């Protein structure tokens, strides 16, 4: 249950008491709201008292009479506007002149309720206001969170893009200044490291392109009957040269064709990510096993490795953007930190699940379950 505070500012005790009675047991709900909203009514007999309560209690809605003993209702309205408070103000007034109505509306009054009002008039007015307020706050909250995530993403992204440039620049400056003399061989390792960083940057850019494809293409998935086994085979073949370099064997253990409605590019991104990780975080002489299983209502993809494995704590961080598990075992392994967050986004689009089984120093299995009826 949520609670909205309503402040009634009126010098007539009858109006204050009436409002309190009418809204006491009133509830507002919306089909998509998790909870209904109830009301607490606060009272003020003068504008001055009203302002005091506004500052102290920060009500959500104010029912404001204009004709008050001291300062007028519109002055209270001006105060709320000046302070930029997020409060909906409704004027209740018996002599609503056009002039006053225009001024009040310009100062941000949301609605007018003529006095005297029936309980039903008050309730329906409160219901509309409550819904409008709820939606407005929800939207604000979502915008804020969205913006924040975007800001974090961009700031980490620029860090990740700049780091290799700085490193390469540093090495080139050393060479330019001939810090280790004229003999090129003295700089061999710096050249190798620079090339390594360029490769890392290239793969980051490739991952970013994948990510933009997924994010911009979210509603339009190109679904077609896809032979999952064939895509797995293509992916295994693509990764083979890299695996040979690392002395890792890859086995595709499923021979029969498994098909499902999917976007072939997305399925390929899934396999490429899982298999390249399985090779990358493996040991010399290790192996990678790929399984595809067709069940009644889902397709299960599994990639298991005999690699370095992870702890539960590391597992928890895995799907965040740019997170790379940093420890002694991974320090010399390059990566963009985007692969698994891309994978997660794709699996989410299919309303699928990712399960990870991992034992440090023994290996890791990624099990992806994609439901067939999406």
């Amino acid at each position, binding site marked *: 249950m949520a609670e909205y505070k309503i402040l009634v500012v009126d010098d007539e005790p009858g109006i204050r008491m009436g409002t309190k009675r009418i809204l006491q047991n009133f509830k507002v709900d919306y089909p998509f709201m998790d909870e209904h909203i109830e009301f607490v009514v606060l009272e003020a007999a003068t504008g001055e008292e009203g302002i005091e309560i506004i500052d102290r209690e920060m009500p959500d809605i104010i029912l404001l009479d204009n004709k008050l003993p001291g300062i007028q209702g519109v002055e209270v309205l001006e105060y709320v506007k000046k302070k930029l408070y997020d409060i909906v103000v409704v004027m209740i007034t018996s002599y609503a002149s056009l002039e006053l109505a225009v001024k009040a509306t310009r100062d941000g009054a949301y609605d007018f309720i003529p006095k005297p009002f029936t309980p039903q008039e008050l309730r329906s007015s409160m219901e509309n206001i409550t819904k409008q307020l709820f939606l407005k706050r929800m939207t604000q909250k979502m915008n804020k969170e969205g913006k924040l995530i975007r*800001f974090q993403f961009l*700031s*980490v992204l*620029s*860090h990740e893009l*700049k*780091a290799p440039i*700085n*490193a390469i620049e*540093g*090495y080139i400056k*050393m060479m330019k200044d001939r*810090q280790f003399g004229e003999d090129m061989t003295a700089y061999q390792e710096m050249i190798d*490291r620079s090339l390594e*960083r360029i490769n890392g940057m290239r793969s980051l850019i490739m991952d970013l392109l994948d990510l933009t494809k997924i994010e911009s293409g979210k509603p339009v998935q190109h679904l077609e009957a896809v032979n999952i086994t064939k895509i797995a085979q293509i992916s295994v073949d693509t990764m083979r040269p890299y695996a040979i370099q690392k002395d890792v064997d890859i086995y595709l253990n499923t021979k029969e064709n498994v098909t499902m409605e999917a976007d072939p590019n997305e399925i390929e991104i899934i396999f490429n990510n899982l298999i390249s990780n399985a090779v990358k975080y493996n040991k010399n002489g290790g192996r990678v096993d790929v399984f595809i299983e067709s069940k009644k209502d889902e397709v299960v993809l599994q990639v298991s490795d005999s690699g370095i494995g992870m702890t539960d704590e590391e597992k928890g961080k895995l799907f965040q953007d740019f997170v790379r598990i*940093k420890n002694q075992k991974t*320090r010399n392994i390059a990566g963009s930190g985007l692969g698994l967050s891309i994978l997660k986004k794709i699996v989410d689009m299919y309303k699928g699940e990712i399960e990870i089984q991992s034992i440090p120093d023994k290996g890791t299995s990624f099990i992806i379950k994609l439901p067939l009826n999406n």
Partner: protein
Amino acid sequence: MKKTVLIVDDDMDYLFQMRLKVEQFGFETITAEGQKEAEMIIETMKPDLAILDLMMENEDSGFILAYKIKRKYPDVPIIIATAVTAETGMTFDINSDENKQWIKADLFLDKGIRADQLQKEINKLLKI
């Protein structure tokens, strides 16, 4: 006796380049690739100065490390070398009183600083 500078950065290339510069200034160096490793080092030795990266294991590893070093060795000057300001527009001004309380670094430097400027700043902190 040569003074020892602790350098902590998770980018191995930056670490290497920084070490080279600092050694050319005539200091001993000891390096760590992350907050945890650096914490282990300070258990057994006291550096004369520390140069820390900001974003390592976590976005604020450098701050946490600075705090821990200062708690153990309040007199060791700390430089945080970061590219964060330029990238995000975030600014940390250690001269404001509010920030002085929680940011324990003595100096913030941009990662792209020229070697001669860096040397000048280090010497100033070490009062050489």
